[in-house]
């Protein structure tokens, strides 16, 4: 494993008596998409804002490609691109002006190619307040990429986006990853994190409660795997059928649906039963527990 590009150690931040981030630490490897997950108020945005130099941590150490966000804000802003959760641009600023303005402060030539790539070219003369939420988000992303930073920090990037815009954004994130750009993504959209992130950390009440790949996290939970099957002769719908490993079973529209804690044994029994009854499979689906289910499980456990 190479040296992490983001290194957070013992980060603590409180607002008055409220402890927003409580002694957390994590590393982000070059070229990975790292998801910071958690419910609202878990401390995701505070963590990101400490990394972005917007807030001063009370304690702890942060290094972003060796840059300390507290001591070297100017260097930091040339190292990272940031898409904030709550931010804006002046209402009358046009898309083209925004690109020229921020590129001038980063000391680079305006990146009109990014406006093309993000479908904003024909909106170059449009003022910010006339853009839809989706276009405003795309512009924010274009501006965060304009100085070609090796690290992008995104806070709830798909909030308020319609489905096609979300898909486009996810494609772009994959493209950035393939170019070796590291993405730190804060989201409470578990499906997005499961789809996009290489590794995730779940934050709860200011603490990181678990870290790992989405597959590792879903595999370690106690949630059951859902097996759905339908056959030509409906032989599986007999009430006397017993399936090893299955904890619950029900019938829905001529489908047998069972929830298994030992999917191997359950499937083996299903296939044996079908063969024994000279039946044939029409449809068979095995769905492992989602990150969302695992997340709910973790948050419920911790709440207890």
């Amino acid at each position: 494993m190479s040296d992490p590009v983001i290194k957070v150690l013992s980060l603590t931040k409180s607002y008055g008596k409220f402890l927003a981030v409580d002694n957390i630490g994590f590393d982000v490897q070059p070229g990975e998409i790292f998801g910071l997950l958690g419910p609202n108020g878990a401390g995701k945005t505070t963590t990101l804002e400490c990394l972005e130099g917007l807030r001063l941590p009370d304690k702890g150490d942060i290094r972003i490609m060796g840059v300390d966000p507290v001591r070297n804000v100017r260097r930091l802003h040339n190292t990272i691109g940031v898409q904030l959760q709550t931010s804006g641009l002046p209402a009358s600023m046009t898309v083209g002006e925004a690109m020229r303005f921020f590129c001038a402060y980063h000391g680079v030539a305006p990146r009109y190619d990014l406006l093309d790539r993000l479908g904003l070219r024909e909106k170059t003369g449009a003022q910010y307040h006339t853009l839809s939420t989706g276009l405003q988000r795309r512009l924010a992303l274009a501006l965060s990429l304009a100085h070609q930073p090796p690290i992008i920090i995104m806070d709830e990037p798909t909030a308020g986006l319609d489905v096609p815009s979300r898909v486009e954004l996810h494609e772009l994130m994959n493209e950035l990853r393939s170019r070796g750009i590291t993405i730190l993504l804060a989201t409470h959209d578990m499906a997005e994190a499961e789809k996009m992130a290489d590794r995730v950390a779940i934050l709860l009440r200011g603490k990181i409660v678990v870290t790992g790949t989405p597959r590792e996290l879903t595999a370690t939970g106690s949630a059951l795997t859902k097996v759905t099957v339908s056959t030509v002769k409906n032989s599986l719908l007999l009430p006397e059928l017993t399936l090893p490993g299955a904890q619950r079973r029900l019938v829905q529209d001529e489908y047998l649906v069972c929830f298994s804690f030992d999917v191997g044994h359950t499937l083996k029994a299903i296939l044996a039963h079908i063969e024994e009854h000279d039946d044939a499979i029409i449809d068979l689906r095995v769905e492992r527990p989602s990150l969302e289910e695992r997340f709910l499980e973790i948050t419920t456990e911790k709440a207890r």
Partner: protein
Amino acid sequence: MNAFGSHFSFEFRTGLRDRPLLLMNYLFPLSFYIVVSLLMTQLNPTFRPNIIPTMVVFVILTSLILGLPNPLVSAREAGIFRSYRVNGVPALSVVLIPALTTAVHAIIAAMIITFTAPIFFQAPLPVNWAGFVVFLALSIFVMAGLGVLIGVISANTRITILWSQLIFLPSMMVGGLMIPRSMLTGVLAKIGSLLPSTYSVEIYNALARGAGLDTKAILSLAVLLVGGILAFALASYLFSWDSQNTTRRGSALLALSVLAPFLIGMALL
């Protein structure tokens, strides 16, 4: 274009295409100038020599005290400053460039008044143009400083209006604009001495109208210069990037120390 040029150019255009700013920079003060000059020259012909200083100070007040602070507060509330910060825009540019561009608008409007007042209302031109430039520059400097300071310390746009009106309205009544300071007595004259417009008119009379540099004029120059420097210094010290992140280097009440040179002026004038 470099960062300063790009930022300046954007803010300057905003002063023209944003309707409330266009109103404060040009439409309101120029309409007021025309209406009041028409009325006053009919009612009181001795008002003519006061048209240029009065209306120029009025323009500076509307653009820099009424117009400048609100966009600063709105931008902070809307998270625009956060976007600026994460993209490396320095705090100094955030407060200084809007002040500079608004000052340029104020100068343009002041020039329109200065060069049209003699034609339309037979107002006498300044006799000493260097003195006029000093009057204009110092008046703009102090009002810009106060405008920026109001924008920096106001928690929201409603408070901004309150602070701005606390300077604007008394300036109109007892700040030497509508009623000459010589006609004010007692408490009203003392209140007038707390307002920058009083010192601006004093400087115009001494330098641009050629009355000569006496103690009062020197005191007025000093009060405006120190007041402007103090206002910008306090604005820079108390600047905050973010409405959500209320961490400041000092209490907003510290801004009241900007009154110090005016209090000294009040005691001595």
